[in-house]
């Protein structure tokens, strides 16, 4: 019996060797196309479309938005338009919110003085907690309230699968799974959700690649930092031309995130996670008429309020703690100054400063609080100037030594650095491996340090700063 089996298997493998791999691939393509044309022929005879206008329109739109030539430019243009609307539209309400919230702060201060409350209580509650909250709300709320509904609108239209379709071949070139384009899109909402969505990839190798690189696209928690900083620094507040520049910078950052995702996927699949990409069929669902009312409610409740609440919940105590840290002195320096001073020499190499780096480290639980911690630390560590507008915020940052390079480095670091605590926990749950979880934190951190270091040193070398 055994002999028959071995005769068979040696015959089969000798037949297999007679045909070259290239020839086999050609035959496979020919077989697949024969099956497809046979299916097409039968379907043409048996199924009749009675001019489905909606379907035809969908196909016409798809032919444009997923075409090789226009697909990617349309994608970038759409993102650009959304960000431009966000930045242009957020300026005015941001100013308004800042003005009224800081007018209220003045009233609080008056009240504390009137009742003769001790200075430290006024400091912790008003200058620490309230001011922290006021900044979070006025800087983050308006961009989020515009950006998230617009982004949800695109999702609801059914555009995201088209994005995945456009990116599919790039992921294949990076030896990763085409579905990673989908999990990456998911990461734009939340990296933890993006990591969980990687379950749709069957091959363990490609799933791990998708999990590890998901963090390179900015999530809900990081978009506000990117948008606000770009708005405050690059947009320079107000003028339309500068809003365009600010939007363009954020688009470039997102694009960079995608490029880094692809590059890292490729590197991983060439080194620690070697293998061939598998392929899949992507169904493009029909476009749907978005339900505007539901979008508004869903994006406001699920995203804007959710992110804002997360920020507020952490920002209020963080504000108080930061104020205390900034006003408790060891020797002749405050605790914050000690911490920041200790991180400063390294941070400067990356184009950042000690406080920014500290804010990123303290912001591990949630990316939303990085910016508030930064602002709070500057506010309480330095002169108590009257901060009553976004222009004043810019002045605060500039007074603390910020240049365009600092803003750019901060945005890049935010884009590329380690994932938040929730995401890391999710990665651990999905991979069940401390080793890969540690890798998922250190690999992006290394990337962030490398990129910011290179850019900062390059800028200094060229004398750009």
């Amino acid at each position: 019996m055994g002999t028959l089996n071995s005769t068979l298997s040696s015959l089969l493998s000798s037949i297999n060797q007679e045909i070259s791999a290239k020839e086999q691939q050609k035959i496979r393509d020919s077989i697949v196309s024969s099956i497809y044309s046979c299916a097409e022929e039968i379907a043409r005879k048996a199924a009749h479309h009675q001019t489905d206008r909606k379907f035809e329109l969908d196909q016409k739109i798809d032919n444009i938005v997923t075409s090789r030539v226009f697909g990617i430019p349309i994608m970038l243009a759409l993102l650009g338009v959304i960000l431009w609307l966000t930045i242009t539209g957020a300026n005015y309400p941001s100013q308004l919110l800042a003005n009224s919230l800081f007018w209220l702060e003045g009233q609080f201060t008056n009240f504390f003085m009137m009742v003769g409350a001790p200075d430290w209580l006024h400091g912790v509650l008003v200058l620490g907690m309230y001011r922290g909250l006021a900044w979070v709300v006025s800087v983050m709320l308006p961009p989020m309230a515009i950006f998230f509904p617009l982004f949800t609108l695109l999702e609801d239209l059914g555009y995201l699968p088209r994005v995945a379709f456009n990116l599919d071949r790039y992921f294949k070139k990076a030896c990763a799974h085409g579905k990673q384009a989908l999990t990456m899109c998911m990461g734009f909402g939340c990296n933890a959700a993006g990591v969980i969505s990687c379950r749709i990839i069957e091959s363990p190798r490609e799933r791990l690649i998708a999990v590890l690189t998901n963090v390179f696209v900015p999530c809900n928690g990081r978009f506000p930092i990117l948008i606000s900083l770009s708005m405050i620094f690059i947009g320079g507040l107000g003028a339309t031309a500068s809003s365009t520049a600010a939007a363009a910078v954020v688009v470039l950052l997102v694009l960079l995130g995608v490029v880094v995702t692809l590059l890292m996927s490729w590197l991983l699949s060439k080194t620690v996670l070697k293998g061939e990409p598998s392929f899949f069929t992507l169904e493009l669902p029909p476009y749907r008429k978005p339900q505007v009312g539901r979008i508004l409610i869903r994006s406001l409740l699920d995203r804007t309020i959710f992110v804002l609440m997360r920020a507020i919940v952490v920002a209020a105590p963080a504000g108080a703690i930061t104020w205390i840290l900034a006003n408790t002195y060891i020797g002749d320096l405050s605790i914050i100054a000690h911490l920041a001073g200790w991180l400063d020499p390294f941070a400067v190499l990356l184009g950042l400063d000690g406080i920014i780096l500290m804010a990123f480290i303290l912001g591990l639980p949630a990316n939303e609080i990085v910016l508030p911690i930064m602002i709070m630390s500057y506010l309480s560590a330095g002169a108590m100037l009257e901060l009553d507008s976004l222009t004043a915020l810019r002045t605060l940052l500039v007074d603390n030594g910020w240049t365009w390079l600092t803003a750019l480095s901060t945005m890049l670091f935010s884009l590329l650095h380690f994932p938040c605590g929730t995401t890391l926990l999710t990665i651990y749950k999905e991979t069940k491996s401390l080793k890969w979880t540690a890798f998922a934190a250190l690999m992006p951190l290394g990337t962030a340090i490398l990129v910011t270091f290179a850019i900062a040193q390059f800028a200094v070398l060229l004398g750009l700063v």
Partner: protein
Amino acid sequence: MKATDKSCCTEAYEAFGLKLSQNQLVVALAGNPNTGKSTVFNALTGLKQHTGNWPGKTVLRAEGTFVHRNKKILLVDLPGTYSLLATSADEQVARDFLVLGRPHAVIVVADATCLERNLNLVLQVMEITAKVVVCVNLMDEAARRSIKVDIEVLSRELGVPCIPTVARDGKGLTELKDAVLDVATGVTATSPRQVSYEPHVEQAAARIESRIRPYLPGWVNHRWLALRLLEGDMSIIKAIIDHLGNGSEQLLLQEGSAVWAR
């Protein structure tokens, strides 16, 4: 090979972790994802279901039983796939069961709203086995999108019974069960449409077919296997050799010698 050569035996199913009671017919349920395959499965088997994994795979398997016209039928739900090219674990599981599990009949669930894509799988299944019934599901959805599927033309073109259904509302299921039983018991003879390949592929396949014929049991479709060899798909070759090597040797002895005797 004639369809009668494909009669099954208990050992073939044990390799797939299936326990068969006497006189039970095995029917596989294949189909693209999102065609309502699970709805068809639930509608046919009701509460008599059992879930587990395919042996050695992390792919979920559901099986259920139902009785139709006093015949006991074991329905095995295959993973939803677009093809049987075996590039994913799902496709491999589906293909291996169709080839090695030798079900008495296969239902391929097709989505009436995008027939063309679904027919790719139907054609590929019909290359492995002739005992196919196509369940053209989501007929209501197709009507809503003003797509008219001519079932008679489809059946004639494919050479196997095609049954229109709306599984969600339970429409067409009795007809489906009738057709499946008739195909499984040989009452209905099918003549599945074979894909014709480019001449050089056909010739090469015929050459390989004649070389492997003496060494293979009758229940493997030789033309299909020759095509897989041509495209260098060694995974099915390995699966067949493994299958022959473990527990089913006797089978090969009987059928193999029967082939030799010719």
